[in-house]
């Protein structure tokens, strides 16, 4: 049923208006505020040692958490779809936990586990620092971004079925060959989409990482933490500049995601 013209236009107006008010205007304000006093001050803030360190640390989080969650995600999706078991609904629910639980709570739970008196506190006592150091931040990043690859891969795996894999096995391929030559190429766009979402989540994560990192300048600050610190210290231009970097990184991932979407539809 085709909606008539006036209602179609008002629907469009409503949709676009909503997006403009809630998403576009705040983002444009960041751009505007950043360059209000020219390109110098924001550039200084970003290229300051602490700013650069924060950028590096954010990239490091992505470099560790994304590959690990990708491997885990694909394996877990295969388990859920290809090996039916009574435990599957339980695994499925546990995987969704990071979506349901607030990141701050996740951070706190890690703090309790690895902090003084926690079950795993002995690891820190052995000289391998987890809390207020990079390992803890990696753990938090992995935790919050864990479900994406699984969630994006499961439906694709279900859709492709097992016929192609079985055909490969009758043609002489072993399990490993079948995975690399048939399964993975068939689910690649789903996995890629999951990777993009994981990356965006890791880049933007604030709550969980704040708690386990302590947000020490130039040591345990990712970009979002740096933004918050700058803002709290009344260096608003610095905060805006770093925000802009984050926004640009997010836009790049979103753009990559759109590109993948189109490839998948083709």
């Amino acid at each position, binding site marked *: 049923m085709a909606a008539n013209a006036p209602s179609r236009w008002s629907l469009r107006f409503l949709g676009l208006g909503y997006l403009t008010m809630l998403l576009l205007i705040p983002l444009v304000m960041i751009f505007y505020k950043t360059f209000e006093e020219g390109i110098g001050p924001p550039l200084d803030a970003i290229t300051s040692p602490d700013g650069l360190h924060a950028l590096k640390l954010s990239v490091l989080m992505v470099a560790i958490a994304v590959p690990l969650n990708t491997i885990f995600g694909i394996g877990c999706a295969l388990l859920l779809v290809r090996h039916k078991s009574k435990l599957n609904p339980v695994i499925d629910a546990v995987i969704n936990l990071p979506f349901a639980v607030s990141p701050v709570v996740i951070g706190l739970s890690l703090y309790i586990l690895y902090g003084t008196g926690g079950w795993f506190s002995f690891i820190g006592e052995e000289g391998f620092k987890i809390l207020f150091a990079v390992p803890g931040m990696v753990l938090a990043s992995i935790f919050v971004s864990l479900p994406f690859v699984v969630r994006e891969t499961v439906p694709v795996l279900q859709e492709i079925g097992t016929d*192609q894999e*079985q055909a490969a096995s*009758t*043609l*002489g391929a072993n399990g490993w060959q079948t995975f690399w030559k048939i399964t993975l190429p068939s689910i690649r766009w789903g996995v890629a989409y999951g990777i993009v979402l994981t990356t965006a989540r890791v880049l933007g994560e604030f709550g969980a990482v704040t708690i386990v990192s302590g947000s020490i300048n130039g040591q345990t600050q990712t970009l979002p933490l740096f933004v918050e610190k700058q803002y709290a210290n009344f260096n608003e231009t610095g905060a805006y500049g770093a925000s802009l970097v984050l926004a640009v990184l997010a836009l790049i991932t979103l753009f990559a995601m759109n590109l993948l979407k189109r490839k998948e539809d083709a």
Partner: protein
Amino acid sequence: MGISVEGANKRFGDFQALDDVSIDVPDGSLTALLGPSGSGKSTLLRAIAGLEDLDGGLVTINGEDATTKPAQKRGVGFVFQHYAAFKHMTVYDNVAFGLKIRKWDKAKTSARVHELLELVQLDGLAGRFPSQLSGGQRQRMALARALAVEPQVLLLDEPFGALDAKVRKDLRTWLRRLHEEMHVTTIFVTHDQEEAMDVAGQLVVMNEGRVEQSGTADELYEHPANEFVMSFVGEVNRLGDDFVRPHDMEVVLDADERTQEGLVQRIVTLGFEVRVELVLSDGTEVWAQLTRAELQRLELREGQIAYLRPVQAKSFNGSSSSTDGASTPHGTPDGGDAGLPAAV
């Protein structure tokens, strides 16, 4: 040699898919597994291929026990109902897949792939992707892919099931010719008795996880072992304890001691064949298959009374078989053949 399955059992939860199934497929033959859906025919085929583990029983391929061998080591070519084309690969790469796994060199692979694509008449389409092919072309590609690795046996699971009627007929003629050329032991699964009889030399009729009967098309049609086989391999009317094929029902206008009275309800003309539907005095609905010429000679009309004379009938209750009026005892304990002397 060939393929043999002994005492195969398979259960899916509460469902007994295979119930002590044994079959023997001679070397180089083309055999059809025929049965309704849920009869276990696909499960049996998949068990032979190693795609399904049996709960019990033995699978022997060319004299070698294959029961516990994984699918990739059984040397079978398998063709799936829905093609199972590798969607991300070209036609060439699909067919070359098994050869690449076997690490053939490039020149040899290319020669073999083109030879097979020519055989399945897809030679010009090597660079296409499966999504750019029609259903019939995809299935021929799947067949070329299965044949590329020179399998000891070729297994086809309802290979024409997803195709339209015309393509289906072409492909089955083509499969029969291909088998005459290649002589690779072939089993194919179908629920279509006409297709099975058209293509295969040997038929195995399955029902509810058991083998009902095996033999040639003629043997099954002329000497069905039981009611199920008789009604599955052709049309059948039931008259009391007797089963009569519609083409063995003679329609006449005068009653005699061997005829039954019936009211002509409907006359359907299907080209050369005419289907006459009648209701007998006891309420049984039957139909007779006549030719156009016969219909014209009889000048039958809907709503008139006519008389039926079964020319050949069968009974499976082990006792005597009779057609109304002329009681001619026939029938052996394992299912009798009650061709009436007057007609055979």
